[in-house]
């Protein structure tokens, strides 16, 4: 139900098209950085995200969160010195599990965001650059096909097809999330294609692929960055529902798994699991959304041109 990806529209770059690519890039980024650093909510969001990231790194390197699977504690223990958030039904420490889940969340978010952005950028750029040709048609057709299969059905189907492989969820998410990025990139590239610098490059015989990779795609980075953050959030949120349906994380623990565990527990009056996982998830998603918003605002070329 949740709109998986968002249709943001930075307005058309109504500035003059005569500028060389590097100068234009620099002015956007420089101005963006400045603007961003003055946006309080964005900085706050970024700060929180970084804190989470450090937590995730810590788990990666085995510094903390390693005892998430030990069944030492009491059943549904309340908060205590040994177990800061209490323990779940089989005595696992909820705090440890929440910390460990941060790593899981980042893994999913990063993998899906990076891969779908790369694929979206590539296919979008190809489609846009060769707009009107068969390459474009095929890519558009592919997008249409993937968009019209309902998301959860698609994920379930992929999970079955891959026979419970732990990467099934990632594959499914990447396959559907790249489409919006692709569409936006394609739109931007179609505009960029007409800029003089592209014609100039062609005129001096630069191969098309080089043009795409060295000149065009870098000019879409602002779109890619924002989309990547949006996909990151979408991936984490989707994981919650997928884990609830049994299609998500297979090994380890995640907030989604903790929440699905807790659906039984809340009836018995034990809320620690539910609250801990929901809180961790909510704060991260919220911070990321704030960060993403500010990023968008900062990178909006129209606004940048005005300031």
């Amino acid at each position, binding site marked *: 139900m949740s709109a998986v990806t968002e249709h943001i529209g930075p307005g058309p770059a109504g500035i003059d098209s005569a500028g060389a690519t590097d100068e234009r890039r620099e002015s956007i980024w420089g101005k963006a950085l400045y603007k961003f650093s003055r946006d309080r909510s964005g900085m706050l969001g970024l700060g929180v995200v970084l804190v989470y990231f450090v937590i995730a790194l810590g788990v990666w390197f085995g510094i903390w969160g390693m005892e998430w699977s030990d069944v030492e504690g009491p059943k549904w223990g309340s908060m205590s010195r040994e177990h800061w958030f209490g323990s779940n039904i089989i005595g696992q420490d909820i705090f440890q599990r929440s910390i460990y889940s941060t790593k899981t969340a980042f893994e999913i978010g990063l993998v899906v965001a990076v891969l779908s952005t790369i694929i979206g950028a590539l296919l979008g750029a190809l489609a846009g650059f060769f707009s009107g040709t068969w390459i474009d048609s095929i890519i558009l057709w592919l997008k249409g096909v993937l968009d019209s299969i*309902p998301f959860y*059905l698609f994920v379930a189907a992929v999970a079955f097809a891959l026979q419970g492989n732990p990467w099934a969820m990632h594959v499914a998410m990447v396959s559907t999330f790249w489409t919006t990025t692709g569409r936006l990139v394609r739109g931007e590239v179609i505009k960029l294609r007409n800029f003089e610098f592209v014609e100039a490059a062609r005129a001096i015989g630069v191969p098309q692929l080089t043009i795409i990779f060295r000149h065009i795609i870098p000019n879409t980075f602002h779109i890619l960055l924002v989309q990547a953050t949006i996909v990151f959030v979408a991936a984490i949120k989707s994981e919650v529902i997928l884990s609830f349906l049994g299609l998500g994380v297979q090994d380890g623990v995640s907030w989604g798994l903790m929440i699905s565990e807790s659906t039984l527990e809340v009836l018995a009056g034990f809320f620690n699991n539910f609250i801990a996982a929901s809180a961790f998830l909510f704060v991260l998603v919220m911070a990321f959304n704030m960060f993403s918003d500010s990023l968008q605002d900062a990178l909006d070329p129209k606004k940048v041109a005005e300031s």
Partner: protein
Amino acid sequence: MDVLQYAIRKLIGGIPLILGVSFVSFLLMVYFGPDQTFELLGKNPTVEEIAEVRRQLGYDRPFLMRYGEYLQEIVTLDFGLSNSTGEPVSAMLARTIPISLALVTPGFILGNLLGVLLALIAAYHRGGWIDKTIMGFSVVGMSVSFLIVIIAFQILLSSSFGLNLFPVRGWNVHSLQDYVMYVTVPTLASVFVALGYNTRFYRAVLVEEMTRDHVRTARAFGIQPGKLLYKHILKNSAIPIITRIMFSIPLVVVSGSLLIESYFGIPGVGKITFDAITTGDQPVLKAVVGLTAVLFVITLLATDILYRAVDPRVSLK
């Protein structure tokens, strides 16, 4: 006449899409999907029984043949009988689709209406505290998991631990009053979750329009706010708004209702689809996915035609 030609051309152009979707979904759900054989067998099956059930389920026929049959089924709208219950699939769909529609429509309409309304308010007071508050709530709405909302609402509104105002689950609808009772909690949950996204999107579109030169000019000329909104802003924003609404229709009907239907025990399309996926009941799956694809293409077509009706500048090429 133009429109008709355009429509036909678009429809024909949509055929590769339908083929693509049906092929991909067939591949995934039917060919690689779960093996329903053992669901249908008893406790101590013999080798012959296993082979017999597989034959009945059609697992032993070659891929292309099965795919061909599938395409035929879509065209004739006859998907046979469910493997699990033996009920004709078309009957199942006829029974469940109206329910799903009745379930999601109020939420859909409300979510979008409220979204546009809030977005208008926010955009109009752009930068002010009203705007910031509304946007703040939107972000919160976007950050909460749908699942959490459903569980929380059910406890708060329907159970005896909470307000106990509404039925916990089920769909026992014989009158308008019953309908309101059963649809309220699911609707509230969906609206809660969708509102954040909707508001943000519509606000972005509206702001886009509002900062256009001709609007600024009109404002400078002292035009009344209502008229401004009406004549200049809403009209131009209509295209992206309509596009978004239209595109979310296929998604909302099938995916969105899935969680709600299972949790609230409402016998709709989403639920039978998910049951079909987990058990591998192919006839039902084939029907749902095929129809969704067709629905999607039709939506695309309808949107295009609407574009044309709305803005004659949009070419029919």
